[in-house]
Protein backbone atom coordinates (compact mmCIF):
# COMPACT_ATOMS: atom_id res chain seq x y z
CA UNK A 1 0.00 0.00 0.00
CA UNK A 2 1.47 3.36 -1.03
CA UNK A 3 1.75 6.29 1.34
CA UNK A 4 -0.93 8.39 -0.33
CA UNK A 5 -3.31 5.47 -0.23
CA UNK A 6 -2.69 5.02 3.44
CA UNK A 7 -3.50 8.70 4.06
CA UNK A 8 -6.68 8.49 2.03
CA UNK A 9 -7.81 5.37 3.85
CA UNK A 10 -7.17 6.91 7.27
CA UNK A 11 -8.91 10.14 6.38
CA UNK A 12 -11.94 8.37 4.99
CA UNK A 13 -12.09 6.32 8.18
CA UNK A 14 -12.01 9.56 10.20
CA UNK A 15 -14.79 11.07 8.08
CA UNK A 16 -16.91 7.96 8.45
CA UNK A 17 -16.26 8.01 12.19
CA UNK A 18 -17.35 11.66 12.49
CA UNK A 19 -20.51 11.01 10.50
CA UNK A 20 -21.21 7.91 12.58
CA UNK A 21 -20.62 9.84 15.81
CA UNK A 22 -23.03 12.57 14.74
CA UNK A 23 -25.55 9.94 13.70
CA UNK A 24 -25.28 8.13 17.01
CA UNK A 25 -25.53 11.41 18.87
CA UNK A 26 -28.72 12.19 16.97
CA UNK A 27 -30.23 8.73 17.45
CA UNK A 28 -29.46 8.63 21.16
CA UNK A 29 -30.16 12.32 21.83
CA UNK A 30 -31.55 12.99 25.23
CA UNK A 31 -35.26 12.47 24.76
CA UNK A 32 -35.95 12.83 28.46
CA UNK A 33 -34.90 16.47 28.20
CA UNK A 34 -37.84 17.30 25.92
CA UNK A 35 -40.04 16.79 28.95
CA UNK A 36 -38.25 19.54 30.83
CA UNK A 37 -37.43 21.82 27.94
CA UNK A 38 -40.22 23.52 26.00
CA UNK A 39 -39.34 25.04 22.67
CA UNK A 40 -41.32 27.90 21.15
CA UNK A 41 -40.59 29.28 17.68
CA UNK A 42 -42.23 31.93 15.53
CA UNK A 43 -43.59 35.46 15.53
CA UNK A 44 -41.09 38.10 16.53
CA UNK A 45 -43.98 40.26 17.79
CA UNK A 46 -44.89 37.64 20.39
CA UNK A 47 -41.34 36.55 21.17
CA UNK A 48 -40.62 39.10 23.96
CA UNK A 49 -43.72 38.06 25.92
CA UNK A 50 -43.12 34.32 25.70
CA UNK A 51 -39.46 34.86 26.49
CA UNK A 52 -40.12 36.99 29.59
CA UNK A 53 -42.91 34.70 30.80
CA UNK A 54 -40.67 31.69 30.15
CA UNK A 55 -37.94 33.16 32.34
CA UNK A 56 -40.37 33.77 35.18
CA UNK A 57 -41.79 30.29 34.75
CA UNK A 58 -38.36 28.68 34.81
CA UNK A 59 -37.58 30.53 38.04
CA UNK A 60 -40.70 29.15 39.69
CA UNK A 61 -40.38 25.65 38.26
CA UNK A 62 -36.80 24.53 38.64
CA UNK A 63 -35.53 22.14 36.01
CA UNK A 64 -37.87 23.41 33.33
CA UNK A 65 -36.38 25.45 30.57
CA UNK A 66 -38.38 27.46 28.04
CA UNK A 67 -36.45 27.95 24.83
CA UNK A 68 -37.89 30.77 22.71
CA UNK A 69 -36.75 31.59 19.19
CA UNK A 70 -37.94 34.05 16.57
CA UNK A 71 -37.97 33.18 12.90
CA UNK A 72 -41.33 34.62 11.93
CA UNK A 73 -44.94 33.50 11.95
CA UNK A 74 -44.51 31.24 8.92
CA UNK A 75 -41.59 29.40 10.49
CA UNK A 76 -43.46 29.01 13.78
CA UNK A 77 -46.58 27.55 12.19
CA UNK A 78 -44.73 25.17 9.88
CA UNK A 79 -42.38 23.95 12.61
CA UNK A 80 -45.20 23.26 15.05
CA UNK A 81 -47.32 21.46 12.47
CA UNK A 82 -44.31 19.28 11.62
CA UNK A 83 -44.02 18.50 15.30
CA UNK A 84 -40.49 19.91 15.37
CA UNK A 85 -41.24 22.30 18.26
CA UNK A 86 -43.73 22.33 21.11
CA UNK A 87 -45.18 25.80 20.58
CA UNK A 88 -45.66 27.82 17.40
CA UNK A 89 -46.10 31.56 17.95
CA UNK A 90 -48.23 33.33 15.38
CA UNK A 91 -49.74 36.77 14.76
CA UNK A 92 -52.47 35.36 12.55
CA UNK A 93 -54.98 32.54 12.70
CA UNK A 94 -53.41 29.36 11.32
CA UNK A 95 -56.37 29.17 8.92
CA UNK A 96 -55.17 32.39 7.30
CA UNK A 97 -51.71 31.06 6.47
CA UNK A 98 -51.33 29.16 3.23
CA UNK A 99 -49.83 25.68 3.41
CA UNK A 100 -50.75 25.03 7.06
CA UNK A 101 -53.15 22.26 8.08
CA UNK A 102 -54.98 24.31 10.70
CA UNK A 103 -57.20 21.40 11.77
CA UNK A 104 -54.19 19.67 13.36
CA UNK A 105 -53.34 22.68 15.47
CA UNK A 106 -54.89 23.88 18.71
CA UNK A 107 -55.13 27.63 19.19
CA UNK A 108 -54.20 29.28 22.49
CA UNK A 109 -54.78 33.03 22.53
CA UNK A 110 -52.35 34.67 24.92
CA UNK A 111 -52.63 38.40 24.19
CA UNK A 112 -54.10 41.04 21.91
CA UNK A 113 -52.17 43.57 19.87
CA UNK A 114 -53.67 46.76 18.54
CA UNK A 115 -52.20 48.27 15.39
CA UNK A 116 -52.28 51.97 14.64
CA UNK A 117 -51.58 53.91 11.44
CA UNK A 118 -48.33 55.84 11.96
CA UNK A 119 -47.93 59.20 10.25
CA UNK A 120 -45.08 61.64 9.99
CA UNK A 121 -45.72 64.81 11.97
CA UNK A 122 -45.43 67.05 8.90
CA UNK A 123 -48.34 65.40 7.08
CA UNK A 124 -50.85 67.59 8.89
CA UNK A 125 -53.35 64.77 9.32
CA UNK A 126 -54.52 63.23 12.60
CA UNK A 127 -57.57 61.27 11.55
CA UNK A 128 -58.23 59.02 8.58
CA UNK A 129 -61.30 57.03 7.60
CA UNK A 130 -60.91 53.40 6.54
CA UNK A 131 -61.93 54.47 3.04
CA UNK A 132 -59.11 57.02 2.99
CA UNK A 133 -56.62 54.45 4.33
CA UNK A 134 -57.65 52.04 1.60
CA UNK A 135 -57.32 54.74 -1.07
CA UNK A 136 -53.87 55.69 0.23
CA UNK A 137 -52.51 52.16 0.44
CA UNK A 138 -53.94 51.12 -2.92
CA UNK A 139 -52.37 54.14 -4.59
CA UNK A 140 -55.54 56.06 -5.43
CA UNK A 141 -54.57 59.00 -3.23
CA UNK A 142 -50.97 60.13 -3.55
CA UNK A 143 -50.91 63.53 -1.85
CA UNK A 144 -51.80 64.46 1.71
CA UNK A 145 -53.76 67.47 0.39
CA UNK A 146 -56.48 65.10 -0.80
CA UNK A 147 -57.21 64.01 2.77
CA UNK A 148 -56.97 67.46 4.32
CA UNK A 149 -53.25 67.63 4.99
CA UNK A 150 -50.35 69.57 3.53
CA UNK A 151 -49.24 69.53 -0.09
CA UNK A 152 -46.88 66.60 0.38
CA UNK A 153 -46.41 63.38 -1.54
CA UNK A 154 -47.46 60.26 0.34
CA UNK A 155 -44.64 57.81 1.05
CA UNK A 156 -45.98 54.36 1.90
CA UNK A 157 -43.84 52.12 4.08
CA UNK A 158 -44.97 48.52 4.42
CA UNK A 159 -43.90 45.65 6.56
CA UNK A 160 -42.67 42.58 4.69
CA UNK A 161 -45.23 40.47 2.85
CA UNK A 162 -46.39 37.74 5.19
CA UNK A 163 -45.72 39.72 8.36
CA UNK A 164 -48.52 39.43 10.88
CA UNK A 165 -48.77 43.18 11.44
CA UNK A 166 -49.22 43.76 7.73
CA UNK A 167 -51.78 40.97 7.39
CA UNK A 168 -53.82 42.40 10.28
CA UNK A 169 -53.63 45.94 8.92
CA UNK A 170 -54.67 44.88 5.43
CA UNK A 171 -57.53 42.79 6.76
CA UNK A 172 -59.02 45.31 9.20
CA UNK A 173 -57.90 48.73 7.98
CA UNK A 174 -57.92 48.18 4.23
CA UNK A 175 -60.94 45.89 4.21
CA UNK A 176 -58.91 42.99 2.85
CA UNK A 177 -57.33 44.99 0.01
CA UNK A 178 -53.67 44.39 -0.84
CA UNK A 179 -51.34 47.34 -0.48
CA UNK A 180 -49.57 48.42 -3.64
CA UNK A 181 -45.89 47.51 -3.91
CA UNK A 182 -43.97 50.04 -1.89
CA UNK A 183 -40.90 49.99 0.23
CA UNK A 184 -40.83 47.30 2.89
CA UNK A 185 -39.10 47.07 6.24
CA UNK A 186 -38.75 43.98 8.35
CA UNK A 187 -39.21 45.40 11.83
CA UNK A 188 -41.63 47.77 13.54
CA UNK A 189 -38.80 49.72 15.18
CA UNK A 190 -37.31 50.44 11.79
CA UNK A 191 -40.72 51.45 10.45
CA UNK A 192 -41.21 53.95 13.27
CA UNK A 193 -37.83 55.60 12.83
CA UNK A 194 -38.31 55.90 9.06
CA UNK A 195 -41.81 57.37 9.47
CA UNK A 196 -40.45 59.81 12.05
CA UNK A 197 -37.74 61.10 9.71
CA UNK A 198 -39.44 60.97 6.30
CA UNK A 199 -41.91 63.79 5.53
CA UNK A 200 -45.07 62.39 3.97
CA UNK A 201 -44.55 58.89 5.32
CA UNK A 202 -47.35 56.58 6.45
CA UNK A 203 -47.05 53.12 7.91
CA UNK A 204 -48.50 51.06 10.74
CA UNK A 205 -47.22 49.40 13.89
CA UNK A 206 -48.38 47.88 17.15
CA UNK A 207 -49.46 50.25 19.94
CA UNK A 208 -46.27 49.43 21.81
CA UNK A 209 -44.26 51.30 19.19
CA UNK A 210 -46.23 54.54 19.36
CA UNK A 211 -44.21 57.42 20.78
CA UNK A 212 -43.95 61.18 20.43
CA UNK A 213 -41.78 60.99 17.29
CA UNK A 214 -44.77 59.95 15.16
CA UNK A 215 -48.50 60.63 14.92
CA UNK A 216 -50.76 57.67 15.65
CA UNK A 217 -53.79 58.57 13.57
CA UNK A 218 -57.35 57.94 14.71
CA UNK A 219 -59.35 55.69 12.40
CA UNK A 220 -62.92 56.83 11.62
CA UNK A 221 -62.53 59.27 14.52
CA UNK A 222 -61.67 56.56 17.03
CA UNK A 223 -58.40 56.87 18.90
CA UNK A 224 -56.10 53.84 18.78
CA UNK A 225 -55.84 52.87 22.44
CA UNK A 226 -56.26 49.78 24.55
CA UNK A 227 -59.69 50.69 25.81
CA UNK A 228 -61.19 51.17 22.34
CA UNK A 229 -59.77 47.80 21.32
CA UNK A 230 -61.17 46.09 24.42
CA UNK A 231 -64.66 47.44 23.80
CA UNK A 232 -64.54 46.62 20.11
CA UNK A 233 -64.80 50.22 18.90
CA UNK A 234 -61.40 50.11 17.27
CA UNK A 235 -61.18 47.24 14.81
CA UNK A 236 -57.51 47.04 13.82
CA UNK A 237 -56.17 44.47 16.22
CA UNK A 238 -55.26 40.81 16.28
CA UNK A 239 -54.82 38.00 18.73
CA UNK A 240 -51.38 36.69 19.51
CA UNK A 241 -51.68 32.95 19.12
CA UNK A 242 -49.61 30.12 20.52
CA UNK A 243 -50.33 26.94 18.59
CA UNK A 244 -49.72 23.38 19.69
CA UNK A 245 -50.03 20.27 17.56
CA UNK A 246 -53.03 18.51 19.02
CA UNK A 247 -53.76 18.83 22.73
CA UNK A 248 -50.67 19.99 24.64
CA UNK A 249 -49.03 17.51 27.02
CA UNK A 250 -49.06 18.15 30.76
CA UNK A 251 -45.84 20.21 30.88
CA UNK A 252 -46.71 22.39 27.89
CA UNK A 253 -50.30 22.77 29.07
CA UNK A 254 -49.08 24.02 32.42
CA UNK A 255 -46.93 26.67 30.79
CA UNK A 256 -49.78 27.79 28.52
CA UNK A 257 -51.99 28.14 31.57
CA UNK A 258 -49.27 30.22 33.20
CA UNK A 259 -49.14 32.50 30.12
CA UNK A 260 -52.84 33.28 30.44
CA UNK A 261 -52.79 33.49 34.23
CA UNK A 262 -53.82 36.73 35.91
CA UNK A 263 -50.27 37.18 37.15
CA UNK A 264 -48.69 37.35 33.69
CA UNK A 265 -51.67 39.03 32.04
CA UNK A 266 -51.72 41.90 34.54
CA UNK A 267 -47.94 42.48 34.76
CA UNK A 268 -45.85 41.39 31.80
CA UNK A 269 -48.52 41.74 29.13
CA UNK A 270 -49.26 45.47 29.59
CA UNK A 271 -45.60 46.19 30.38
CA UNK A 272 -44.54 44.82 27.00
CA UNK A 273 -47.23 46.75 25.14
CA UNK A 274 -49.82 44.05 24.57
CA UNK A 275 -53.44 44.08 25.69
CA UNK A 276 -54.47 41.39 28.17
CA UNK A 277 -57.01 38.86 26.93
CA UNK A 278 -58.80 39.25 30.26
CA UNK A 279 -59.52 42.91 29.45
CA UNK A 280 -61.26 42.08 26.20
CA UNK A 281 -64.98 42.62 26.42
CA UNK A 282 -65.50 41.04 23.03
CA UNK A 283 -64.05 38.12 21.16
CA UNK A 284 -63.56 37.74 17.46
CA UNK A 285 -63.48 34.57 15.35
CA UNK A 286 -61.27 33.86 12.37
CA UNK A 287 -64.11 35.02 10.10
CA UNK A 288 -64.24 38.35 11.88
CA UNK A 289 -67.47 37.73 13.77
CA UNK A 290 -67.51 39.74 16.96
CA UNK A 291 -69.24 38.36 20.04
CA UNK A 292 -69.79 40.22 23.32
CA UNK A 293 -68.26 38.36 26.22
Amino acid at each position, binding site marked *: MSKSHRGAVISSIV*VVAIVAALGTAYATRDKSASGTSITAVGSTALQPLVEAAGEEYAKENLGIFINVQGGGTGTGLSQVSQGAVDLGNSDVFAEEKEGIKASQLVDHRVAVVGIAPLLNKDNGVKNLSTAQLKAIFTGKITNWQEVGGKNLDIVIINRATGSGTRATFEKWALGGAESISAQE*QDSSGMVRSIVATTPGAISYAAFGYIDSSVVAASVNGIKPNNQNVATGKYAIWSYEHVYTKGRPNAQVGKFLKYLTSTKIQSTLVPKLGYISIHDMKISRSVNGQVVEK
Partner: protein
Amino acid sequence: MDNITKKLMQRSESTRKDTIGRAISMTALILIAIVVVSIFVFVLSRGLSTFYKDGVNVKYFLFGTTWNPSVTDPATKKPYIGALPMILGSFLVTFLSAIVATPFAIGTALFMTEIAQKRGAKIMQPIVELLVGIPSVVYGFIGLTVVVPVIRTIAGGSGFGILSGTIVLFVMILPTITSMTVDTLKSVPRHYRESALAIGATRWQMIYKVVLRAATPGILTAIVFGMARAFGEALAVQMVIGNAALMPHSLTTPASTLTSVLTMGIGNTVMGSLQNDVLWTLAMILLIMSLVFNLIVRAIGRRGAMK
Protein backbone atom coordinates in the same frame (compact mmCIF):
# COMPACT_ATOMS: atom_id res chain seq x y z
CA MET B 1 23.62 -5.97 11.05
CA ASP B 2 20.34 -7.07 12.43
CA ASN B 3 19.77 -3.68 13.89
CA ILE B 4 20.20 -1.94 10.53
CA THR B 5 17.89 -4.37 8.75
CA LYS B 6 15.30 -3.75 11.38
CA LYS B 7 15.68 -0.01 11.02
CA LEU B 8 15.39 -0.20 7.27
CA MET B 9 12.40 -2.51 7.27
CA GLN B 10 10.40 -0.65 9.90
CA ARG B 11 8.49 2.51 9.24
CA SER B 12 10.35 5.39 10.81
CA GLU B 13 8.83 7.96 13.14
CA SER B 14 8.92 10.57 10.37
CA THR B 15 7.02 8.35 7.96
CA ARG B 16 4.35 7.84 10.55
CA LYS B 17 4.06 11.58 11.14
CA ASP B 18 3.87 12.11 7.41
CA THR B 19 0.93 9.73 7.17
CA ILE B 20 -0.86 11.45 10.06
CA GLY B 21 -0.32 14.88 8.54
CA ARG B 22 -1.61 13.70 5.20
CA ALA B 23 -4.64 12.17 6.88
CA ILE B 24 -5.48 15.37 8.76
CA SER B 25 -5.36 17.55 5.68
CA MET B 26 -7.27 14.99 3.63
CA THR B 27 -9.98 14.86 6.31
CA ALA B 28 -10.31 18.63 6.29
CA LEU B 29 -10.52 18.62 2.51
CA ILE B 30 -13.15 15.89 2.40
CA LEU B 31 -15.28 17.55 5.09
CA ILE B 32 -15.22 20.89 3.28
CA ALA B 33 -16.01 19.18 -0.01
CA ILE B 34 -18.99 17.47 1.66
CA VAL B 35 -20.24 20.80 3.06
CA VAL B 36 -19.95 22.56 -0.30
CA VAL B 37 -21.62 19.72 -2.17
CA SER B 38 -24.47 19.51 0.36
CA ILE B 39 -25.10 23.26 0.15
CA PHE B 40 -25.29 23.02 -3.62
CA VAL B 41 -27.54 19.96 -3.53
CA PHE B 42 -29.82 21.52 -0.92
CA VAL B 43 -30.19 24.93 -2.58
CA LEU B 44 -30.55 23.43 -6.06
CA SER B 45 -33.16 20.87 -5.00
CA ARG B 46 -35.16 23.54 -3.16
CA GLY B 47 -34.71 26.16 -5.83
CA LEU B 48 -35.57 23.90 -8.73
CA SER B 49 -38.76 22.67 -7.09
CA THR B 50 -40.34 26.00 -8.06
CA PHE B 51 -40.08 24.87 -11.65
CA TYR B 52 -40.70 21.14 -11.22
CA LYS B 53 -43.15 20.86 -8.35
CA ASP B 54 -45.01 24.14 -8.70
CA GLY B 55 -44.81 24.14 -12.48
CA VAL B 56 -43.57 27.71 -12.89
CA ASN B 57 -42.28 28.70 -16.29
CA VAL B 58 -38.56 29.59 -16.08
CA LYS B 59 -38.95 32.48 -18.51
CA TYR B 60 -41.92 33.83 -16.56
CA PHE B 61 -39.86 33.72 -13.38
CA LEU B 62 -36.73 35.35 -14.79
CA PHE B 63 -38.39 38.02 -16.91
CA GLY B 64 -41.65 38.69 -15.10
CA THR B 65 -41.78 42.19 -13.67
CA THR B 66 -44.33 41.76 -10.87
CA TRP B 67 -43.29 40.17 -7.60
CA ASN B 68 -46.00 39.31 -5.10
CA PRO B 69 -45.95 35.56 -4.45
CA SER B 70 -48.89 35.60 -2.06
CA VAL B 71 -51.29 36.99 -4.69
CA THR B 72 -52.60 35.04 -7.67
CA ASP B 73 -52.78 36.68 -11.06
CA PRO B 74 -56.42 36.41 -12.16
CA ALA B 75 -55.40 36.22 -15.82
CA THR B 76 -52.94 33.32 -15.63
CA LYS B 77 -54.09 31.69 -12.36
CA LYS B 78 -50.47 31.77 -11.22
CA PRO B 79 -48.93 33.83 -8.40
CA TYR B 80 -47.02 36.94 -9.35
CA ILE B 81 -43.45 35.71 -9.22
CA GLY B 82 -41.50 37.78 -11.72
CA ALA B 83 -38.02 38.09 -10.25
CA LEU B 84 -36.67 40.61 -12.76
CA PRO B 85 -36.99 43.63 -10.41
CA MET B 86 -34.70 42.01 -7.83
CA ILE B 87 -32.29 40.59 -10.39
CA LEU B 88 -31.97 44.03 -11.98
CA GLY B 89 -31.66 45.68 -8.58
CA SER B 90 -28.83 43.36 -7.57
CA PHE B 91 -26.93 43.88 -10.80
CA LEU B 92 -27.45 47.64 -10.75
CA VAL B 93 -26.08 48.18 -7.24
CA THR B 94 -23.22 45.77 -7.97
CA PHE B 95 -22.09 47.38 -11.23
CA LEU B 96 -22.67 50.95 -10.10
CA SER B 97 -20.73 50.49 -6.88
CA ALA B 98 -17.90 48.74 -8.73
CA ILE B 99 -17.76 51.55 -11.31
CA VAL B 100 -17.59 54.18 -8.57
CA ALA B 101 -15.15 52.27 -6.38
CA THR B 102 -12.62 51.20 -9.01
CA PRO B 103 -11.00 54.60 -9.77
CA PHE B 104 -10.71 55.36 -6.05
CA ALA B 105 -9.27 51.93 -5.34
CA ILE B 106 -6.69 52.13 -8.14
CA GLY B 107 -5.75 55.67 -7.10
CA THR B 108 -5.26 54.65 -3.49
CA ALA B 109 -3.31 51.56 -4.47
CA LEU B 110 -1.02 53.56 -6.78
CA PHE B 111 -0.38 56.05 -4.02
CA MET B 112 0.49 53.26 -1.62
CA THR B 113 2.81 51.36 -3.95
CA GLU B 114 4.31 53.86 -6.39
CA ILE B 115 4.12 57.35 -4.93
CA ALA B 116 4.47 57.23 -1.17
CA GLN B 117 5.50 53.73 -0.22
CA LYS B 118 6.52 54.56 3.34
CA ARG B 119 3.47 56.61 4.25
CA GLY B 120 1.32 54.14 2.34
CA ALA B 121 2.56 51.27 4.41
CA LYS B 122 2.35 53.24 7.63
CA ILE B 123 -1.00 55.02 7.31
CA MET B 124 -3.03 53.71 4.40
CA GLN B 125 -2.46 49.99 4.94
CA PRO B 126 -3.94 49.96 8.47
CA ILE B 127 -6.85 52.14 7.35
CA VAL B 128 -7.72 49.82 4.50
CA GLU B 129 -7.42 46.79 6.75
CA LEU B 130 -9.64 48.47 9.32
CA LEU B 131 -12.30 49.16 6.69
CA VAL B 132 -12.31 45.47 5.69
CA GLY B 133 -13.03 44.44 9.26
CA ILE B 134 -16.03 46.70 9.93
CA PRO B 135 -19.21 44.60 10.14
CA SER B 136 -21.76 45.25 7.42
CA VAL B 137 -24.47 46.20 9.90
CA VAL B 138 -22.36 49.23 10.86
CA TYR B 139 -22.15 50.32 7.23
CA GLY B 140 -25.88 49.81 6.92
CA PHE B 141 -26.60 51.84 10.02
CA ILE B 142 -24.42 54.73 8.88
CA GLY B 143 -26.13 54.50 5.50
CA LEU B 144 -29.51 54.71 7.16
CA THR B 145 -28.70 57.65 9.42
CA VAL B 146 -26.40 59.65 7.13
CA VAL B 147 -26.70 58.67 3.47
CA VAL B 148 -30.49 58.26 3.27
CA PRO B 149 -31.36 61.69 4.75
CA VAL B 150 -28.76 63.39 2.53
CA ILE B 151 -30.18 61.74 -0.60
CA ARG B 152 -33.67 62.68 0.60
CA THR B 153 -32.80 66.38 0.87
CA ILE B 154 -31.00 66.41 -2.47
CA ALA B 155 -33.26 64.23 -4.61
CA GLY B 156 -36.55 64.27 -2.69
CA GLY B 157 -38.71 61.21 -2.12
CA SER B 158 -37.87 58.94 0.79
CA GLY B 159 -34.12 58.75 0.19
CA PHE B 160 -34.18 54.97 0.00
CA GLY B 161 -33.12 53.43 -3.26
CA ILE B 162 -30.39 52.19 -5.54
CA LEU B 163 -28.31 55.35 -5.12
CA SER B 164 -28.13 54.94 -1.34
CA GLY B 165 -27.34 51.24 -1.79
CA THR B 166 -24.59 52.09 -4.26
CA ILE B 167 -22.98 54.59 -1.90
CA VAL B 168 -22.97 52.14 1.01
CA LEU B 169 -21.64 49.30 -1.14
CA PHE B 170 -19.00 51.59 -2.63
CA VAL B 171 -17.49 52.11 0.82
CA MET B 172 -17.82 48.41 1.59
CA ILE B 173 -16.06 47.06 -1.50
CA LEU B 174 -13.45 49.84 -1.72
CA PRO B 175 -11.05 48.17 0.75
CA THR B 176 -11.45 44.78 -0.95
CA ILE B 177 -10.54 46.16 -4.36
CA THR B 178 -7.81 48.40 -2.94
CA SER B 179 -5.95 45.75 -1.00
CA MET B 180 -6.05 43.28 -3.88
CA THR B 181 -4.87 45.95 -6.31
CA VAL B 182 -1.99 46.80 -3.95
CA ASP B 183 -0.91 43.16 -3.99
CA THR B 184 -1.01 43.07 -7.78
CA LEU B 185 0.95 46.29 -8.18
CA LYS B 186 3.57 45.02 -5.73
CA SER B 187 3.98 41.87 -7.79
CA VAL B 188 4.92 43.86 -10.92
CA PRO B 189 8.68 43.13 -11.24
CA ARG B 190 10.98 45.96 -10.24
CA HIS B 191 12.94 45.82 -13.51
CA TYR B 192 9.81 46.83 -15.47
CA ARG B 193 9.80 50.12 -13.61
CA GLU B 194 13.56 50.57 -13.85
CA SER B 195 13.60 49.91 -17.58
CA ALA B 196 10.80 52.40 -18.15
CA LEU B 197 12.53 55.10 -16.14
CA ALA B 198 15.88 54.29 -17.78
CA ILE B 199 14.58 55.07 -21.26
CA GLY B 200 13.35 58.43 -20.03
CA ALA B 201 9.74 57.85 -19.03
CA THR B 202 8.28 60.18 -16.38
CA ARG B 203 6.82 58.60 -13.28
CA TRP B 204 3.31 58.99 -14.62
CA GLN B 205 4.27 57.47 -17.98
CA MET B 206 5.88 54.59 -16.13
CA ILE B 207 2.77 54.03 -14.03
CA TYR B 208 0.30 54.47 -16.84
CA LYS B 209 2.08 52.65 -19.65
CA VAL B 210 3.95 49.92 -17.80
CA VAL B 211 2.80 49.19 -14.26
CA LEU B 212 -0.94 49.43 -14.86
CA ARG B 213 -0.66 47.51 -18.12
CA ALA B 214 1.24 44.71 -16.50
CA ALA B 215 -1.19 44.63 -13.55
CA THR B 216 -4.42 44.74 -15.59
CA PRO B 217 -5.44 41.09 -15.08
CA GLY B 218 -4.87 41.37 -11.34
CA ILE B 219 -6.84 44.61 -11.12
CA LEU B 220 -9.71 43.02 -13.05
CA THR B 221 -9.66 40.12 -10.62
CA ALA B 222 -9.82 42.58 -7.73
CA ILE B 223 -12.84 44.31 -9.29
CA VAL B 224 -14.64 41.00 -9.80
CA PHE B 225 -13.98 40.06 -6.17
CA GLY B 226 -15.41 43.40 -5.07
CA MET B 227 -18.45 42.83 -7.26
CA ALA B 228 -18.94 39.38 -5.78
CA ARG B 229 -18.96 40.94 -2.32
CA ALA B 230 -21.43 43.63 -3.39
CA PHE B 231 -23.69 41.07 -5.05
CA GLY B 232 -23.88 38.89 -1.96
CA GLU B 233 -24.18 41.67 0.63
CA ALA B 234 -27.57 41.49 2.33
CA LEU B 235 -27.87 43.42 5.55
CA ALA B 236 -26.38 46.80 4.73
CA VAL B 237 -28.17 46.97 1.38
CA GLN B 238 -31.46 45.90 2.90
CA MET B 239 -31.27 48.77 5.37
CA VAL B 240 -30.93 51.49 2.74
CA ILE B 241 -32.48 50.27 -0.51
CA GLY B 242 -36.11 50.46 0.64
CA ASN B 243 -37.05 46.89 -0.25
CA ALA B 244 -39.80 47.53 -2.76
CA ALA B 245 -40.00 44.78 -5.35
CA LEU B 246 -40.57 47.24 -8.16
CA MET B 247 -38.78 47.63 -11.47
CA PRO B 248 -36.07 50.24 -10.77
CA HIS B 249 -37.01 53.21 -12.93
CA SER B 250 -35.02 55.76 -11.00
CA LEU B 251 -31.95 55.67 -8.78
CA THR B 252 -33.71 57.37 -5.88
CA THR B 253 -36.94 55.39 -5.65
CA PRO B 254 -37.11 52.28 -3.44
CA ALA B 255 -35.96 49.09 -5.10
CA SER B 256 -34.82 45.69 -3.90
CA THR B 257 -32.10 43.13 -4.41
CA LEU B 258 -32.14 39.34 -4.41
CA THR B 259 -30.57 39.27 -0.95
CA SER B 260 -32.92 41.84 0.60
CA VAL B 261 -36.02 39.99 -0.60
CA LEU B 262 -34.57 36.75 0.76
CA THR B 263 -33.80 38.03 4.24
CA MET B 264 -37.12 39.88 4.47
CA GLY B 265 -39.27 36.97 3.37
CA ILE B 266 -37.76 33.73 4.56
CA GLY B 267 -39.16 33.88 8.11
CA ASN B 268 -42.66 34.74 6.99
CA THR B 269 -43.16 31.82 4.63
CA VAL B 270 -43.96 28.19 5.27
CA MET B 271 -41.37 25.58 4.27
CA GLY B 272 -42.50 23.67 1.20
CA SER B 273 -45.01 26.26 0.02
CA LEU B 274 -44.63 28.06 -3.28
CA GLN B 275 -43.86 31.33 -1.48
CA ASN B 276 -40.94 29.59 0.21
CA ASP B 277 -39.78 27.74 -2.90
CA VAL B 278 -39.45 30.92 -4.96
CA LEU B 279 -37.18 32.37 -2.26
CA TRP B 280 -34.97 29.30 -2.60
CA THR B 281 -34.90 29.89 -6.33
CA LEU B 282 -33.60 33.40 -5.64
CA ALA B 283 -30.95 31.84 -3.38
CA MET B 284 -30.07 29.51 -6.23
CA ILE B 285 -29.58 32.47 -8.56
CA LEU B 286 -27.26 34.04 -5.97
CA LEU B 287 -25.27 30.83 -5.70
CA ILE B 288 -24.97 30.49 -9.46
CA MET B 289 -23.87 34.11 -9.74
CA SER B 290 -21.12 33.66 -7.17
CA LEU B 291 -19.99 30.65 -9.18
CA VAL B 292 -19.95 32.81 -12.31
CA PHE B 293 -17.87 35.46 -10.53
CA ASN B 294 -15.41 32.73 -9.56
CA LEU B 295 -15.21 31.44 -13.12
CA ILE B 296 -14.59 34.97 -14.39
CA VAL B 297 -11.72 35.35 -11.92
CA ARG B 298 -10.17 32.08 -13.09
CA ALA B 299 -10.62 32.98 -16.74
CA ILE B 300 -8.89 36.33 -16.17
CA GLY B 301 -6.10 34.59 -14.29
CA ARG B 302 -5.49 32.14 -17.15
CA ARG B 303 -5.81 34.51 -20.07
CA GLY B 304 -4.04 37.53 -18.74
CA ALA B 305 -1.16 35.93 -16.88
CA MET B 306 1.91 38.14 -17.08
CA LYS B 307 4.42 36.86 -19.59
